[in-house]
C-alpha cells in the first residue's frame, strides 16, 4: 500500500487583507523508503504543505480540505489524540533553524528522551537515558556521556541539527519530513547533515520528504522532485529528469537562474522576470503566466484556464504547452 497519499490538499488562511490561498489542489504519493524533494521559493506553499501532513498549521482562521492518507488513515479527519500519536512516531519533522528548534530550558538528553517517552509511556528513566545516549552516538556527537546533560546553547549549529535529527528518528518514523534542514547552516556543515540524513534513512528505511529552495541540495540526495509555485505543484519528476529535461517553464527558469560553480565570470544569468505573486490576489488561470516567456504563444489560454498536472514524457507537468514543446524546453545549451 502506498505509504502516504495526499489528495487535493487545499489550505487557506483568512487574514484581514483577504484569504491567503497557500496550497491549492496538491496531490502526491510517497512510497516507503523514497526520498522526495518539494522545491519552491518563498510563497510556493511547500512549507505549508509539509506542516499540513502533521496538522501543524496554526492560526486564527485556517481552512484545510482534501485528504492526507497515511497508510490508509486520513490525518485530516483524525481526532486530536490520534494525530498526536502520529506526530513524532509515524511521521517526524525536522525544522529549519536548529538554534531555535530546541527547548533552551532542558538538557539535550531529556529532550531526546522525551521524544521517546511520549510514545512509550512505560519507559523508565534509565531506559530513556540509554536511548538518548545511543541516539547521540548514532548521529555522531562526540563524547555523548558528557554531552547528554548539556543544554542546547552549549552546542554549535551543526551539532544542534544533529540532535534534532536524533530526536526525530528516535521512534523509527516511517516518514521523515525535513523542512529546509540545511538552510541555516554553513556549507561544510550542510554537507555533513545531508550525508547524515541519507545515512539515517538507509539505516531506518524511512521515507524522506525534503523541503528546500536549494536545487543543489535536491540533486544531492533525492530521487524524485516536486516543484511548487504559488501553492500548486507545477512539475513532478525524477531528479534526473527534473534537471536534464524539465517540463515546466518555471523549472526551466529556476535552473537557468541558478548560478553554479561552473558559471563563468560575466556569463549572464537568466533570471525569471517579475516577482512571485501575492497569494491573496492570485493571477487568473495559470499562476505563473505573468512571468512566463511562453504565455503569449497560446492565445490567452494561460490567463483564463489553470492547467492540471498531466503526464508529459516520464514526468508530470501542469502547463498548457504541448508535450513536444515541453520536452524540448531546455533546447540548445543545458
Amino acid at each position, binding site marked *: 500500500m502506498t505509504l502516504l497519499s495526499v489528495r487535493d490538499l487545499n489550505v487557506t488562511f483568512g487574514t484581514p487583507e483577504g484569504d491567503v490561498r497557500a496550497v491549492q489542489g496538491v496531490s502526491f504519493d510517497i512510497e516507503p523508503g523514497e526520498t522526495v524533494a518539494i522545491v519552491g521559493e518563498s510563497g510556493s506553499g511547500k512549507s505549508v504543505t509539509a506542516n499540513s501532513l502533521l496538522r501543524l498549521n496554526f492560526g486564527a482562521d485556517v481552512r484545510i480540505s482534501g485528504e492526507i492518507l497515511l497508510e490508509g488513515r486520513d490525518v485530516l479527519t483524525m481526532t486530536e489524540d490520534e494525530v498526536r500519536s502520529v506526530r513524532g512516531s509515524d511521521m517526524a519533522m525536522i525544522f529549519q533553524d536548529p538554534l531555535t528548534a530546541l527547548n533552551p530550558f532542558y538538557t539535550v538528553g531529556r529532550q531526546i528522551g522525551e521524544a521517546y517517552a511520549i510514545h512509550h509511556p512505560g519507559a523508565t528513566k534509565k531506559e530513556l537515558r540509554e536511548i538518548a545516549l545511543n541516539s547521540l552516538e548514532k548521529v555522531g556527537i562526540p563524547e555523548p556521556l558528557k554531552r547528554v546533560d548539556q543544554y542546547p546553547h552549549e552546542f554549535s549549529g551543526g551539532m544542534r541539527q544533529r540532535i534534532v535529527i536524533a530526536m526525530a528518528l528516535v521512534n523509527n518514523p516511517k516518514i521523515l519530513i525535513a523542512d529546509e534542514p540545511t538552510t541555516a547552516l554553513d*556549507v*561544510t556543515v550542510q*554537507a555533513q547533515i545531508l*550525508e547524515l540524513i541519507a545515512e539515517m534513512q538507509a539505516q531506518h528505511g524511512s521515507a524522506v520528504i525534503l523541503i528546500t529552495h536549494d536545487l*543543489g541540495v535536491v540533486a544531492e540526495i533525492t530521487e524524485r522532485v516536486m516543484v511548487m509555485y504559488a501553492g500548486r505543484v507545477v512539475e513532478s519528476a525524477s*531528479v534526473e529528469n527534473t534537471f536534464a529535461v524539465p517540463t515546466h517553464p518555471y523549472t526551466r527558469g529556476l535552473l537557468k537562474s541558478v*548560478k*553554479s560553480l561552473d558559471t563563468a565570470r560575466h556569463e549572464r544569468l537568466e533570471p525569471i522576470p517579475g516577482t*512571485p505573486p501575492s497569494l491573496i490576489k492570485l493571477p487568473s488561470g495559470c499562476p505563473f503566466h505573468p512571468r512566463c516567456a511562453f504565455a503569449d504563444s497560446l492565445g490567452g489560454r494561460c490567463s483564463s484556464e489553470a492547467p492540471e498536472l498531466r503526464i508529459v514524457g516520464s514526468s508530470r507537468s501542469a502547463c498548457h504547452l504541448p508535450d513536444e514543446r515541453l520536452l524540448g524546453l531546455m533546447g540548445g545549451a543545458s
Partner: protein
Amino acid sequence: MNTDLVLEARGLRKYFPTGASKMLQRPTDVVQAVDEVSFGLRRGTTLAIVGESGCGKSTLGRLLARLIEPTAGSVLLDGKDITKASSRELLALRRDIQVVFQDPYACLNPRHSIGQSIGTPIRIQKTLSRADEKARVRELMALVGLNPEHYNRFPHEFSGGQRQRAGIARALALQPKVIIADEPVSALDVSIQAQILNLMEDLQSSMGLSYVFIAHDLSVVRHIADQVAVMYLGKIVEIGDPTAVYERSAHPYTKALLSAVPVADPKGAGERKRIVLSGDVPSPVNPPSGCRFRTRCPKAEARCAAEEPLLIEREAGHQVACHFPL
C-alpha cells in the same frame, strides 16, 4: 601590487574583548575576529570574500567601510589612510565608500518613504538642493529597476528584491567609488538573486564601480568576482582569481569548501568526491596555534602547530597560506 588600487587593506586586525567582565576588571577573553588581513582591490573590479560563519568576513566589511575601528592596521582609499581620518575628513570619505547590507527587511526605515530613504545620504552630505535631490532619487530608482512613481511608498509595500534594489540605489546616491556588499543576495529567493546580481554587474560596468562582495555562497561568488579571498577564523587562507582558486585550489580548506557545495546536477553530484571536514569550527576566542585550520585539516603535521603559514605566491595572482599547499 602595481595596478591601480582603489581600496587597500594593510595588516588589518580587529579584536573584540569578550567574556565576563567584572567591574573595573579587564574582560578575560578576546575574540580575534580579523587577524592580519591585507589585500588590494583594483579599480572597477569585484573582490569577493568568502567564508563560513565566524570567519570574520562581516567584521572585515565593516572595517573597510570604517563602521568600526580596527585594533591595528590601516585601510587606504585611493592611497589615503582612512583609518586615521578626522571626523570631517570622514564625512567626505563616506561619499566614496558605501555599504549594501544583507537583510532588505531591516535596513530601510519603515517610517520613511522609499524616496526619503534613498535620498538620505544626499541630505546628510548636503550635496544637492531639495528639488534636485528628488530628481536624483527618481533617476536612481529608474536605474535600479524601481518605478520612480513609487517615490512616496513605504518599504512594507515592496518585496524583498525591490527593497534590496532600494538599498543599492541608496548606496549609489553619492556616486561612490567602492561599494561594500555584505551578503546582498543571501536573503532573497533564487530567481530574484539572479536579477540583483545582473543589476549589480550592469551598474559596475556603466559606473565604473568597485565592489567588495562578501558572501558565503561560493556559486554566487564564482559568477561575479574578479578576485576571490577565502577566509577562515579571521585570516585569509587563499586569494587569487576565481579560475585559479576554484579549479586549482591550493588550500585544503578551499578544496573542502568547494567540495561541500551542493551541485545542481544529479549526475555530477554522484561523481564528485566530497571532502568532509571533521568537527566544528573552533572558537575564535582561542584559535589554534600556528595554522588555524590544522585541527580539521586532513594534511596537518607538526609544523602546522608550531608555525603560522604566511601568504605565499603560488602562481601569478594566486596566493595561499599553507605549509603544504595542494
